[in-house]
């Protein structure tokens, strides 16, 4: 391994260990989507009729429909959790240790991003395993094909978290992120209902859902779980990941970003 990959490995390992040692975080990361799957989906199964839309080739139950959205939700919450821990690291000083190491800053932040993605993968696969035990199974190859989709969507949502962490000065300000980022992104997406269903309620809301990057993360995961490729979603998610990451780099630029404002 060269110096760059040694740093990457160490940062990913550190985040994974921190996550696995924190049983409460692991448990809540699993309980949250399972509550949606078991309780919310059971209640809405009767209310929401779903027609056959790609990638599905037959009628599906509502539980089956929301599984990809819940996978993305896990990654969304994980991205925000990573962002929260970055703000904490900034307050506690350990971010300084990272940023003063002799690697390019973009690489260090990318390592942080990859560490968050690795943690989210553990959560998503654990969730998919429990869903399978509950009888909600995907095609066998879907579990393989979804891996790159999860990596990309994890990168996009993690980069969004990184961007947010570069704009927040104190942990106390983080509550706003829940109200202004997580909830709108999640509810204005195809995680819980397909676009055509949203269009029945409001064309405007449907259009907002259509441009929400989270919608495309959900669709990328949904198609991949059925071993299908969604190029449009890939383009959106890829573009979102790059854009959010570049903006986060600006936020962490020592000449203009966060550290200057913090003094």
């Amino acid at each position, binding site marked *: *391994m*060269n*110096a*760059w990959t*040694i*740093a990457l*490995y*160490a*940062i990913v390992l*550190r985040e994974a*260990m*921190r996550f696995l*040692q924190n049983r409460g975080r692991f448990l809540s990361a699993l309980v949250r989507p399972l509550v949606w799957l078991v309780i919310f989906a059971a209640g809405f199964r009767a209310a929401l009729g779903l027609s056959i839309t790609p990638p599905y080739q037959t009628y599906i139950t509502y539980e089956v429909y929301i599984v990809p959205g819940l996978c993305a939700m896990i990654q969304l919450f994980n991205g925000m959790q990573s962002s929260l821990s970055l703000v904490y690291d900034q307050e*506690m*000083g*350990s971010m*300084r*240790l*990272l*940023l*003063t*190491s*002799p*690697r*390019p800053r973009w690489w*260090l932040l990318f390592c942080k991003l990859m560490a968050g993605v690795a943690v989210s993968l553990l959560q998503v696969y654990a969730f998919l395993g429990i869903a399978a035990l509950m009888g909600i199974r995907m095609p066998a190859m879907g579990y393989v094909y979804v891996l790159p989709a999860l990596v990309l969507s994890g990168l996009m949502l993690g980069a969004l978290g990184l961007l947010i962490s570069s704009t927040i000065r104190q942990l106390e300000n983080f509550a706003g992120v829940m109200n202004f980022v997580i909830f709108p992104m999640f509810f204005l997406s195809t995680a819980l209902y397909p676009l055509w269903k949203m269009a029945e309620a409001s064309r405007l809301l449907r259009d907002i859902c259509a441009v929400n990057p989270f919608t495309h993360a959900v669709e990328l995961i949904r198609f991949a779980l059925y071993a299908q490729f969604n190029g449009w979603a890939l383009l959106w998610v890829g573009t979102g990941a790059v854009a959010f990451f570049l903006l986060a780099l600006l936020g962490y630029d*020592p*000449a203009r970003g966060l*550290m*200057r404002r913090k*003094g």
Partner: protein
Amino acid sequence: MTRTTALCVSNVSLSYGAKRALDDVSFALDRGRFCALLGPNGAGKSTLFSLLTRLLVTREGRIEVAGFDLARNPRAALARIGVVFQQPTLDLDTSVMRNMRYFAALHGMAGRDATARIDAALERLNMRERADEKVRALNGGHRRRMEIARALIHAPEVLLLDEPTVGLDTAARRSITAHVHDLAAEGLTVLWATHLVDEIEPSDDVVVLNRGRVLKQASAAEIAGEGDLIDAFIEMTGGNDEAAA
């Protein structure tokens, strides 16, 4: 910058909006010297440390570390700096060794090489026997020593310490100050930010910083003259510090 200069700060200025945090700061440190950056609270010491570690950058002035321009060649310069920040930067719930390994990896070291360097650094600070303890179990003095040991893993040429004795009791303060003086005696260049004059020995170099400006650079004995260093410091800074002791 001469061949014997380890750290050279030339005409560095920085403003936060309208406030001038550092104003035309210049000084140089020779290799193997212990230099105290002495200034009252709010003098600009931590801001200067942020510039020296590239947490902040400025277009005004130039900083060279071991001959490397921090602006043009930041990676080479940062590789030659060891830093102990005022605020602890430790993972409390992991062991001393795991903390050290993480830092070594950030500097591109792993495996046997990292282990040997970590062992040597811990040994240097008399912390070897605590390698497997959780950081949370260490007292403040040992945590600081561990941070200093960690800053030495990659064999830096310049060691920067930003008020490293803050919050420590007298014995721990004295012990850490003595340890770092020993490191300087062994050839390491040390910049030690403080507002406590009792951490400075007569033979140390001193840069007096006040309100973002360098008032004087000389040896502690020279600055003290016939009297005490503390009196000279208070006179220079206008008594602008309640903690100088």
